[in-house]
């Protein structure tokens, strides 16, 4: 594949020339992540420069069509770009639920008008999206959602409440599941709809988590008026869109562990635990747990790579993202349990400067949601049992 080799050389050179040194360091603080949106600001000139250069190249979303501001890369090229970015530790220029979730759904189910309207604003980081799925009584059992959209001429009038809306208080627009036919069976009668968070009747309330942070909100809709043209896909068939999108979400969450690249866990642990004369971690039990973890982590990375290659080869199972979501999130929880154990008493501090305001325990507590959000581990296992193993009554 000479063309791909050339693409790799060019990409490497371009990244080397254009990625500022500050943008090659691991993300340590929440503020280092750039989410875009109407009210966003850059925390540094480097962040701004890096974002704008990548945006201009279409590489905020390298594999989307160029007409929407994407890079138009094919799967092999996109993989090369990922590899070359990883090689220099380049940060993602833009993080966005528009990229990870809504975009793929719009590309598959959206009208031309919807694509033209929304996708360029996603790739350019102009609009920040949030996801209105879960409700207080519709968690794992998402399809029992009750937020209703009643027809009123060309509009729907939306009333109800969502929960676990990521960063709803910062988002510009929401993609939302609403019940458009209350008489239909559970999975029918649901529609997938988009609207502006500044619409009259929308309000949000952050949820304080055990980590002491509030990445999620409760979101309330009080007679919110939304044009019917904002429905994606067919009215009352929103469940299809939702399922498609959930697969992307799960694939994304399963890759969570990859974000914290860098030194092996065992070396991090050596900082606090120390090493013995042979250079081995001076806590043999912990060392064994770390080694077993790293075996599984390395294997998961192989599986993630293989999942992409299988999909490309048309051999992937559509429900496999549930398998990866399950394993990836459980592994990430295990990673942080080990990090807490390695950190010992130092990792128990919650507020000091020394502990970076308790960065490690807060991150640890945050991981506990990984196996709940985007479909619980129990739901994932049920999907594998039913859709892949075809077990009776699953």
């Amino acid at each position: 594949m000479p063309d791909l080799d050339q693409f790799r050389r060019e990409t490497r050179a371009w990244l080397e020339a254009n990625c500022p040194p500050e943008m090659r360091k691991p993300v340590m603080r929440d503020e280092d992540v750039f989410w875009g949106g109407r009210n966003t600001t850059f925390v540094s000139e480097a962040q701004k420069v890096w974002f704008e250069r990548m945006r201009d190249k279409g590489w905020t979303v390298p594999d989307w069509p160029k007409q929407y501001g994407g890079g138009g890369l094919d799967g092999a090229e996109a993989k090369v770009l990922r590899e070359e970015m990883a090689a220099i530790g380049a940060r993602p220029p833009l993080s966005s639920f528009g990229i990870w979730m809504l975009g793929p759904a719009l590309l598959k189910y959206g009208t031309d008008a919807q694509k033209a309207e929304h996708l360029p604003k996603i790739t350019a980081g102009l609009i920040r999206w949030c996801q209105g799925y879960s409700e207080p009584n519709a968690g794992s059992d998402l399809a029992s959602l009750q937020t209703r959209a009643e027809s009123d001429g060309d509009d729907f009038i939306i009333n109800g409440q969502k929960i676990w809306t990521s960063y709803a208080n910062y988002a510009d627009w929401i993609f939302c599941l609403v019940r458009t036919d209350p008489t239909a069976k559970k999975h029918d009668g649901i529609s997938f709809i988009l609207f502006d968070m500044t619409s009259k009747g929308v309000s949000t309330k952050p949820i304080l988590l055990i980590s002491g942070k509030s990445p999620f909100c409760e979101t309330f809709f009080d007679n919110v008026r939304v044009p019917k043209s904002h429905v994606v896909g067919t009215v009352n068939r929103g469940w299809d869109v939702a399922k498609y999108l959930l697969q992307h979400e799960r694939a994304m969450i399963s890759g969570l562990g990859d974000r914290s690249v860098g030194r092996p866990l065992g070396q991090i642990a050596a900082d606090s635990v120390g090493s013995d004369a042979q250079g081995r971690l001076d806590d043999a039990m912990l060392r064994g747990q770390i080694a077993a973890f790293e075996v599984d982590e390395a294997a998961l990375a192989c599986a993630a790579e293989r999942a992409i290659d299988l999909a490309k080869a048309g051999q992937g199972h559509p429900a496999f993202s549930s398998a990866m979501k399950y394993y990836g999130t459980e592994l990430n929880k295990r990673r942080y349990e080990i990090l807490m154990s390695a950190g010992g008493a130092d990792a128990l501090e919650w507020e000091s400067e020394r502990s970076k305001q308790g960065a490690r325990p807060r991150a640890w507590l945050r991981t506990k949601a990984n196996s709940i959000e985007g479909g619980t581990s129990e739901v994932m296992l049920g999907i594998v049992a039913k859709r892949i193993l075809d077990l009776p009554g699953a």
Partner: protein
Amino acid sequence: MPLVLTEEQSMLRDSARGLISDKAPVAHLRQLRDSRDADGFSRALWKTFAEMGFAGLLVPEKFGGSGLGNVEAGVLMEEIGRTLMPSPFFATAVLGTSALLRGGNATQQSAYLPKIADGSLLAALAVDEHAKHRPLQVSLQAVRSGNGFRLIGTKTFVVDGHIADLLIVAARSAGSAGERNGLTLFLVDPKSKGIAIERTAMVDSHNAARITFDNVEVTADSVLGEIDQGADLLEGVLNIGRGAVASEMIGLSEEVFGRTVTYLKERKQFGKLIGEFQALQHRAAQLYIDIEITRAAVLKALQALDQDAGKAGAAVAVAKARAGTTATLAVQEGVQMHGGMGMTDQFDIGFFMKRARVCQELFGDSNYHADQLARGRGY
């Protein structure tokens, strides 16, 4: 001795549970946290503890205490674990009292024990210096200076360090880090010149401090036990503390488990109570079994401590190791089975997860104690 509570111990449990669930439910900890309380516990409640004989639970009657043992202290700790009540009970009534009882001379005992029993004196034991608990690694120096010593070094993870009226400090008077010989315990006034105490805000909102000793002068009278021979004394006190923490973890585990089972019987998804799902049933049953087995191991350790604390090492290692893994599993399953609600600060379950993490680390985690058991058994 039967591995069940006696009638008297059951009565003690009931009265402690009545008091604690009434005066210090989890909301009590939450309130102290949210108000950023300077003490981190309720002095009024500690007074009530003293009046009920709990502050002096382990103090002999001749010093005004209740003269009870480690099983009874465990009963109290378990109830404390159920509501996560922040209390000087562990540092003062268990560690402080045990150190003075086991290492103190007559003068030291009569100076401090009555005050512990009447609730007027709070103590703290300063051992750890690094991220992980390794008592023989103590390297805070005790340098001879005239008739006394000067203390130089830093202690971390000192429970109740910032409210204590008396510090019990493990120091190295001879030998080097890792050696058994050369450890000495000192009774130190926290107001002494050269001491700097930084309260460390912890994940569990309980008390802990980092204490720096900058050439702190102490007299020869302040030595607790024998000079250079403090390792056995320290180990004995630590084992008593480990038994107490294991008890707290049992109370914590049972409470989280009870709340989780209740939730399984209330929460509906997919048109069923989630407790009807067999996968959750089996996990709940496994956790129940795990807790019951750990409970037996903890009670065994407490009885062993009462019988002969010097020989209780293996039983304590088993109890603390088991309690750590059981509590970890209990809070993990608790949060997971509560789903998103378990992740919110508004629900209490997160408090249990945070406290379990700290208890796991306190005086040696499950790995440490499994390793100790292996060493003890010669492999």
